[in-house]
């Protein structure tokens, strides 16, 4: 992947072409995304800069790339995995190519199909395409939001970039934080698209293109992750076979690269499946990378080793402890550009550092399988809660939740009361759109206890209202399981998992992630499967397990799902990094940003410093407050 930024001066009479120096500054801010090369274009009121991470066509793939008639200017971040097939088709249709890159395919495809060209792409991409003749800029983002793309309008100019920090040099009044987006993050872990934590800075939503000319900015949705009740009529065996073939192809086309490709190995089903398929169908030896934790309850080393032995891979791992997380926290937040409620992105950034140190630029991962095939515990949890809601007074139904979460720290005595206080929320409205996610969001939202009165007074639209307004009306017609999957993909996946924990943690070390499970053909295939094929009884990702059973060892297929978690940030308060944390949590810093109540934060800090374990909400609050303060200092104050 790469990075780009640019400016379109939309003044009616031509506009001012952005100075090359300004574009260079914008590019410098995202140099980590593309350390290999820089390219700049500026004319006729439009300018852009591209930072290149060379992966395909190392010799001639430079950007910005111009069409042969020089009427189109393209900067592009990501990969078009089916570019080989698209190129062949275009050649038979008479198109002549001067490079071997996927970038040039985009130009020709646009010339041939106009705006519809994007539906031909299979890949992960953010694209800025300037059509000089009609003075129109297209900003396009891949279907599920793997590659980031942001924009704002500043004094009539449209300013865009792969990361918000690339926009900053072009902004006349700098950046400020949005109270409403903070409210959304402190509920869903990510802002509701297209919002960002920065006021008036928006993302191009996944599956959308922005069509910008001198008078209008239009947002067009070209793809939607959708479900209908017209389920596939294929037999279970046929579905398993189709999934098997699709996943192999999705993996194989993601191995297309002119540099070596590696894989992450977490020890779970998803990454194990991808690693096993690379091993089976790739044409170079498999190279794998893993994360380990020195706190045993987070670690999955034994399962990783099972795979390493079976696949005979050359393997590297990095051991991460609470101190490492505390030390890397500030730099992580510089890259997430957004507050986070859990520390999980930090180890992912350390893991991509290991990949870089081993001179790899590309890794395949198992990201997306839990969303596509309904693998997360929250889907089981919703199923049990719905079952419980049919007989709310049952003494034994809620106990199924204890089986689902054996690590729950429940007091002895009357479990039901405490299970009910958390999981029993919304039990009287099991058909409500967000039923599946209410307990999680309520727990997260407790972190808002620490919001200052001033911040609360600026909240006009409540997070839940903003989310509900963003959901399509047809969602109420979805099966409850599909509805939960949709909400998960809309709220947590693109805004947090693929962004704060995904692209940002990979690209901070100039590493590109590729995600076979997020191939849109697989998503569309899985969306047509009956929910019972995805989760059979309480057996999650049933169809995937069946399809992968010949490649992945039984002990991994049959193991209980372990959610990826990392040690909390409060364990670092008493370490070297603690001193830095004290600075961000000081009365004076909290007073400057104004988002949190210094008195309340002091009490939380005191509790954490005593070394007593914090509750989930308290830990999320501390992580959220610290990260918000770091975002404020990194992007607003400075």
């Amino acid at each position, binding site marked *: 992947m790469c990075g780009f930024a640019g400016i379109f001066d939309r003044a009616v009479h031509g506009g001012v072409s952005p100075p090359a120096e300004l574009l260079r500054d914008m590019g410098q801010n995202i140099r980590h995304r593309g350390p290999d090369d820089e390219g700049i274009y500026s004319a006729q009121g439009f300018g852009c800069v591209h930072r290149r991470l060379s992966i395909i066509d190392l010799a001639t793939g430079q950007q910005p790339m111009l069409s042969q008639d020089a009427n189109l200017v393209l900067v592009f971040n990501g990969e078009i995995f089916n570019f080989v097939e698209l190129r062949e088709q275009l050649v038979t249709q008479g198109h002549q190519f001067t490079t071997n890159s996927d970038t040039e395919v985009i130009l020709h495809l646009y010339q041939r199909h106009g705006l519809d060209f994007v539906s031909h792409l299979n890949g992960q991409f953010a694209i800025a395409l300037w059509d000089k003749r009609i003075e129109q800029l297209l900003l396009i983002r891949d279907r599920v939001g793997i590659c980031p793309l942001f924009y704002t309008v500043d004094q009539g100019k449209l300013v865009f970039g792969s990361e918000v920090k690339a926009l900053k040099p072009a902004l006349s009044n700098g950046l400020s934080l949005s109270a409403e987006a903070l409210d959304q993050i402190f509920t869903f872990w990510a802002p509701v698209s297209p919002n960002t934590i920065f006021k008036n800075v928006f993302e191009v939503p996944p599956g959308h293109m922005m069509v910008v000319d001198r008078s209008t900015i239009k947002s067009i949705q070209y793809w939607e992750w959708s479900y209908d009740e017209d389920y596939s009529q294929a037999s279970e065996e046929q579905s398993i076979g189709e999934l098997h073939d699709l996943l192999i192809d999705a993996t194989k086309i993601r191995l297309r690269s002119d540099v070596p490709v590696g894989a992450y190995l977490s020890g779970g089903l998803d990454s194990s499946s991808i690693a096993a398929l690379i091993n089976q169908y790739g044409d170079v030896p498999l190279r794998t990378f893993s994360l380990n934790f020195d706190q045993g309850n987070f670690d999955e080393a034994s399962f990783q080793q099972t795979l390493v032995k079976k696949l005979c891979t050359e393997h590297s791992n990095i051991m991460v402890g609470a101190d490492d997380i505390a030390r890397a926290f500030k730099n992580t937040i510089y890259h997430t550009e957004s507050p986070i409620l859990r520390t999980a992105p930090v180890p992912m950034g350390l893991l991509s550092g290991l990949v870089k140190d081993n001179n790899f630029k590309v890794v395949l991962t198992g990201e997306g399988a839990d969303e596509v095939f309904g693998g997360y515990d929250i889907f089981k949890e919703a199923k049990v809660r719905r079952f419980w809601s049919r007989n709310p007074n049952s003494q034994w139904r809620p106990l199924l939740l204890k089986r689902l979460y054996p690590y729950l720290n429940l*007091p002895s*005595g009357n479990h039901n009361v405490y299970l009910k206080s958390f999981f029993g929320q919304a039990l009287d409205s099991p058909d409500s759109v967000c039923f599946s996610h209410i307990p999680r969001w309520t727990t997260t939202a407790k972190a808002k206890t620490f919001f200052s009165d001033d911040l609360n007074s600026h909240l006009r639209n409540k997070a839940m209202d903003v989310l509900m307004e963003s959901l399509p009306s047809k969602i109420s017609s979805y099966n409850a399981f599909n509805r939960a999957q949709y909400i998960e993909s809309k709220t947590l996946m693109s805004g947090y998992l693929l962004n704060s924990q995904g692209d940002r943690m990979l690209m901070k070390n100039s590493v590109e992630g590729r995600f076979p499970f997020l191939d849109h053909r697989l998503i569309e295939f899985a969306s047509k499967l009956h929910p019972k094929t995805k989760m059979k009884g309480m057996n999650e990702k049933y169809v995937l397990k069946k399809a992968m059973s010949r490649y992945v060892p039984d002990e991994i297929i049959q193991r209980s799902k372990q959610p990826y978690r990392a040690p909390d940030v409060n364990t670092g308060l008493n370490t070297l990094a603690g001193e830095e944390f004290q600075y961000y949590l000081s009365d004076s810093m909290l007073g400057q940003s104004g988002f949190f109540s210094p008195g309340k934060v002091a009490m939380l800090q005191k509790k954490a410093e005593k070394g007593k374990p914090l509750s989930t909400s308290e830990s999320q609050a501390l992580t959220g407050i610290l990260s918000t303060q770091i975002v404020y200092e990194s992007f607003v104050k400075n």
Partner: protein
Amino acid sequence: MDEKKIALRKFVLENYLFTEDEGALKDDDSFLDNGILDSMGVLELISFLEEELSTSVEGDEVTPDNLDSINKVLAFIETRSH
């Protein structure tokens, strides 16, 4: 009992509500209904009762009847002292 009540209120206010504002908690406010305590919070409360107020809590005594408000906890302490 007054000393115990003062200590208990201070503990709940500072540890769960993160405030010194006495008005933020009434003695009959339900800890569960108001989202003041979750399961981890209950464990902490039990540790506090045992360590600071010398009141041991058995497994079958961990119920809302005993632990769900300042007044209920105080009543529970009272029964244990007899």
